[in-house]
């Protein structure tokens, strides 16, 4: 995105521009940014549409899908599990004092588990996926673009979107629910052990309170949201890789940008899906469930 700023250029003798000129430059700069953003959004939409049309018309071959499933699912499990465990324990540490002031320590399980399965589990799993897998995808595809490997695929009659993007998209879509379940499970376990072993909270009441407040819909909410997160990570990362600028700098930028955009997408989707799923919940269970 290059913008020519002639305001303080030697051409006008370093004199300060008039207000009208400065306003003109400011509007022109913003106009350029808006036009470029609309073009990028249109380009991204076409990219997504082409991916979907290839996905429904021809499924990827086994040798392209399985390595991606392994990369996205199996290799991400340890880091997601570790993050989930620590977040569960941190939630226990952060909530214990406030709950103990109200003599409601046994409700800690409900808060920790509800927070984990509805929000932190899916968001954390998606964030780890964006960092570990999304950036790697963008860098790998970017390198392939820079070294003409993507052109080589096309030149040999293989569609690069069908061959490279569809398997990665499917791998993210299929694996992120399992990673979310793993993050949820390890978080619940971490919170439980910390609460019962360190704070000596009664195990029976910890679980019975959790069971009263955390329902199947909460677990479904987290897993349902994770599908959107996985799709967003795959699309953003593959798009950044495919549109990588030349050189090592371009590849590095594609990797960084893919993580930043994926993370923003995760948060935005989380908000809107959260609002929508809440409406669905109250439609199904009008009386709701209260913690106190």
């Amino acid at each position, binding site marked *: 995105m290059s913008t020519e700023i002639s305001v303080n250029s030697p051409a006008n003798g370093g004199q300060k521009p008039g207000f009208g000129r400065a306003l003109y430059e400011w509007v022109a700069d913003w106009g350029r940014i808006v036009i470029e953003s609309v073009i990028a959004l249109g380009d991204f939409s076409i990219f997504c549409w*082409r991916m979907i049309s290839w996905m429904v*018309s021809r499924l990827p071959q086994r040798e392209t899908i399985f390595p991606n499933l392994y990369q996205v699912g199996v290799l991400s499990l340890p880091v997601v599990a570790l993050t989930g465990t620590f977040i569960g324990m941190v939630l226990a540490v952060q909530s214990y004092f406030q709950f103990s002031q109200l003599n409601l320590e046994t409700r800690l399980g409900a808060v920790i588990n509800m927070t984990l399965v509805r929000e932190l589990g899916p968001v954390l799993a998606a964030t780890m996926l964006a960092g570990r897998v999304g950036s790697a995808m963008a860098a790998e595809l970017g*390198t392939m673009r820079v*070294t*003409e*490997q993507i*052109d*080589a695929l*096309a*030149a*040999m*009659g*293989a*569609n690069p979107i069908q061959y490279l993007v569809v398997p990665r998209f499917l791998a993210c879509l299929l694996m992120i629910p399992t990673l979310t379940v793993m993050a949820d499970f390890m978080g619940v376990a971490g919170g439980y052990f910390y609460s019962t072993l360190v704070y000596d909270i009664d195990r029976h009441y910890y679980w019975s309170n959790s069971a009263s407040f955390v329902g199947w819909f909460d677990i479904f909410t987290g897993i349902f949201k994770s599908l959107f997160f996985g799709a967003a990570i795959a699309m953003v990362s593959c798009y950044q890789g495919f549109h990588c600028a030349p050189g090592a700098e371009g590849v590095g930028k594609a990797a960084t940008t893919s993580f930043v955009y994926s993370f923003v997408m995760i948060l935005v989707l989380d908000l809107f899906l959260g609002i929508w799923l809440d409406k669905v919940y109250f439609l199904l269970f009008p009386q709701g469930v209260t913690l106190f």
Partner: protein
Amino acid sequence: MIESLLEEQKPVVEIEDVCVTFGQQPVLRDIRIKIVPGQTLVLLGESGCGKTVLMKTVIGLIKPNRGRVLFDDQDINTLSEKAMSRLRLRFGFVFQNAALFDSMTIGQNVAFPLRQHGNHNPHRIRELVLARLAEVGLPDHVVYKKPAELSGGMRKRVGLARALIMNPELILYDEPTTGLDPIMSDVINELIIRTRRRNPVTSIVVTHDMNTARKVADRVIMLYPMSRLQEDEPQIIFDGSPDELEKCRDRRVRQFVNGEAGERLMEMRAAATPI
């Protein structure tokens, strides 16, 4: 001679008034070329004149802003993605840096088009891969190696073997001898000639290398960079046989053929001099 050939035979590739612009920068302007079957066309020109862009336009990797490219009377830019993928099976492309897939072995690289499009059994695929590698002078054991383990010359030869595996009708070579020593460059030149002798293929070779042009070309076209052209000047500054190229009196052609810097050094100094 070229005109008479074009009159006798129906062209396999027709480039009609092709213009390509990247952003604000024009790269190709009103390029018009007809290539007949079996011809080896060498595209010459200095760096940045649009040779590779033209070649990528021919196989639809770059879409022209204006004009069209016909292959066997089909406008390749009006084809659907799937039809384009099928048509590309009739092309072979040897990339400048070979563009081998890093994650695959040499055997998997060469077999890639067969696995994607053929219905051969693994045994037959292996036979074909070994035969193509032998044609370009590579031993059987390289099939297990990764591209990073090979020298530049070997990688180029693997790229050639991969381009030939589907028996294409049109082969495009992007700077096949760039970065190679003189002996390996001549090996590549010989392989291009041998490929043409074995199979009745049409070839387009993009190069800076005058030895390659003299050795392999039936026809030479020289492009000139758009940045150095006036509004009304054609971008193709030479179209003829290699012999005619040697006799051409155009100052720009002579400068390239003889490898003379001429006024360029002065221009570069002037551009670099602070005001």
